[in-house]
């Protein structure tokens, strides 16, 4: 060792770091392996956070969705709209109907949400969508006009005035639409809105109905009460309603995919266990190859605790380095996946932030301690004489 000759002061910290990365290839492989596991863990944490923890924007929190109690497949009558409007606190109500058509072909990457609505009132409900006023006007004036998300417009190169055709699946008519307005929203949404009257003209039996209603409520305190009042109002009607916040409405789709919570947790479990194995494995190899060195350290007077802490620290340093790499890689990967999910119509707003990244690193830290402990314990309790004799 040439530390002394180089004149460097050897602190415990630099000793640990130097040892952790002494076998460069092994450390690098371990780090990469850990980083991929942590990338996955970060992804899972972000999904969890987006589903179950994140609070929505204030306007969205004041938005209620009123739909048929049994299933979205059933339409609600048009007169429900005025009745909902009469509930105290309701500022605006817009009808929405899922058109479910296809654009170009059946490929999933060409799928996006298409909804029939009322252009005169829709933007009062969806106040988080930002549209230039002249475009709003153009959309309201053209019955066959469409309002589209800016990312969707960019994806297909649509410009104002472009004409597109949606092929029908559920309704028996194709739609020819003209792009009249483009909206900005954070996060982007991949959706298209058009005038429900246009659909009614083409499909007579659809007249006087809507898939569901979105209602904007005055203040946050009134939201829960308004939801109750709406459902009570239709309790004895032939079609009962289910009113819930927009977030709960979206979570309903997530829940219908199956037991998502258990799914995420089990993947996290597998990942955590995998990191532990990899990291413990590396530390075992490292200790094994340094048997003689440990014995020398002990003859120099290093106590068992010292040796133990040196090896645990090494394991932690490796795990943290891998974790940091994983979190760094996760940032672009998760941004890309979010984009892709939104493209598929799944409203997942995932971002790696201080909390999610920090949580992943914390997991890495704990795993570093746990996985390093056993090999380190073995090393610290080694018999000095045997250790010195060891041929490694």
């Amino acid at each position: 060792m040439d530390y002394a000759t180089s004149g460097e002061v050897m602190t415990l910290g630099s000793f640990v770091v130097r040892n952790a990365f002494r076998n460069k290839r092994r450390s690098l492989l371990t780090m990469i392996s850990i980083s991929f596991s942590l990338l996955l863990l970060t992804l899972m944490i972000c999904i969890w956070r987006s589903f179950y923890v994140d609070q929505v924007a204030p306007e969205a929190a004041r938005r209620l969705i009123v739909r048929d109690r049994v299933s979205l497949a059933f339409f609600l009558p048009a007169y429900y709209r005025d009745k909902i409007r009469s509930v105290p606190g309701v500022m605006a109500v817009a009808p929405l109907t899922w058109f479910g058509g296809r654009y170009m072909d059946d490929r999933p990457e060409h799928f996006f949400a298409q909804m029939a609505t009322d252009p005169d009132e829709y933007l009062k409900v969806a106040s988080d969508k930002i549209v230039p006023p002249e475009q709003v006007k153009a959309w309201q004036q053209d019955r066959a006009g469409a309002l589209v998300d800016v990312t969707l417009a960019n994806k297909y190169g649509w410009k104002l005035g472009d004409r597109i055709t949606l092929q029908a699946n559920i309704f028996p008519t194709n739609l020819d639409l003209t792009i009249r307005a483009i909206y900005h929203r954070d996060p982007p949404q991949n959706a298209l809105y058009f005038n429900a009257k246009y659909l009614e003209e083409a499909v007579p039996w659809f007249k006087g109905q809507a898939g569901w209603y979105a209602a904007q409520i005055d203040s946050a305190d009134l939201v829960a009460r308004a939801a109750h009042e709406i459902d009570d109002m239709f309790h004895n009607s032939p079609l009962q309603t289910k009113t819930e916040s927009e977030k709960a409405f979206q979570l309903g789709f997530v829940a219908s995919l199956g037991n998502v919570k258990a799914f995420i947790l089990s993947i996290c479990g597998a990942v955590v266990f995998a990191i532990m194995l990899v990291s413990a494995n590396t530390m075992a190899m490292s200790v094994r190859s340094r048997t003689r060195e440990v014995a020398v350290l002990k003859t120099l007077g290093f106590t068992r605790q010292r040796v133990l802490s040196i090896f645990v620290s090494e394991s932690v340093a490796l795990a943290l380095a891998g974790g940091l790499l994983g979190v760094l890689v996760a940032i672009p990967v998760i941004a890309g996946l979010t984009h892709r999910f939104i493209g598929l119509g799944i409203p997942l707003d995932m971002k790696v932030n201080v909390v999610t990244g920090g949580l992943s690193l914390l997991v890495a830290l704990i795993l570093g301690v746990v996985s390093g402990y056993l090999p380190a314990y073995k090393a610290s309790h080694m018999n000095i004489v045997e250790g010195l004799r060891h041929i490694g």
Partner: protein
Amino acid sequence: MAIPISYNVRNLRLRKGLTIMTALGIALTVTTAIFLMALIAGLNRAFVSSGNPLNVLVLRKGSEAELSGGFDASLYPTLKTLPGIAKDKQGEPMTSGEWVVVIILPRKDGTGEVNVTVRGMMPDGLEMRQLSDPGHRGVKLVEGRWFQTGQREVVVSKSIQSRFSHANIGDTMEFGKGSWKVVGVFDAGGSAYESEVWGDVNQMASDFDRQGGFASAYLRATDPIAAEALKNRVSDDQRLKLEGFIETDYYAKQTSSGAPIKVIGFVVGFIMAIGSIFAAMNTMYAAVAYRGREIATLRVIGFSRPAILTSFVLESLLLALLGAAAGIVLMLPFNGMQTGTSNAVTFSEVVFALRITPQVAGYAILFALIMGFVGGLAPAWHAARQNILSALRS
């Protein structure tokens, strides 16, 4: 000359701890992959095994699912007179006009409410579904009796019975305009019917204000050729404005419901596999490093570089195989575990079982072998290229 494989086996046994930990790491990745593949296999089976190739499903033209269908009841008698329809017990054409609605049931484990498909059918509908044909197993009653025409009675599938509350014989279910008595439980052999509740079509139609029409009609053809002809005849008749589907084709299209699971499965499997490859590489590099002198000795004895390369790749493959085996054994208890997801076409819950088929196991082994191969190649290359003299001296 090749190095005998027992050399590798002995080496793996010599460094037990390392072997077990690396194999377990691979096993975990394999387990995750098996879990996701078994989900997809189960879901595919639910759809692929659904429907009888002799049944022709009739829907309103342009509608792709029973839920969004609906045609006037006056068209039904015309359908009944079409040629090529098999006869029922009474000697009449075996056809059934049906209604499908979706209701909300609370899950037994309290994890929320789920949409469940309720199907109203005619007596012929029941008879048709109990028929077994080559390559298709009919629905069987396992408990109680079938519902009776004109009664507010329902029969439920086995998995509905086990997953939802109030679904045992003698219980009453609340939906539509009142309560329905559960009188029987049927086994649909893991098909899409496994997610349904059945009752009398007229009772259901009046409860959901759907009298005077049907969502769909089922026609039982005498043979596959007649089924094809029936389907074309229904679709081509301009007056009817209806469309015929062979029932098996109709369900095969719904497998797209597994798309979200496939996307997630691919991402998760891919990331975990890369992690495992690096872990395996690490282990193999260590194996090579420990055995530097041994490898050099082998070379001196006369084993060629390719022989050493093959031997170490083989060792890595063995390690991966061990991991695959452990992964499969770990996952076997979950075989048959029932779960549900949303059907993208009907918006209702599809119940299906995790299925670890030989194919799934085969893919899992292949997956592990690829990990072993990629992970083992670089270290094996390193071993083969080692300088004999310096290795012997070390």
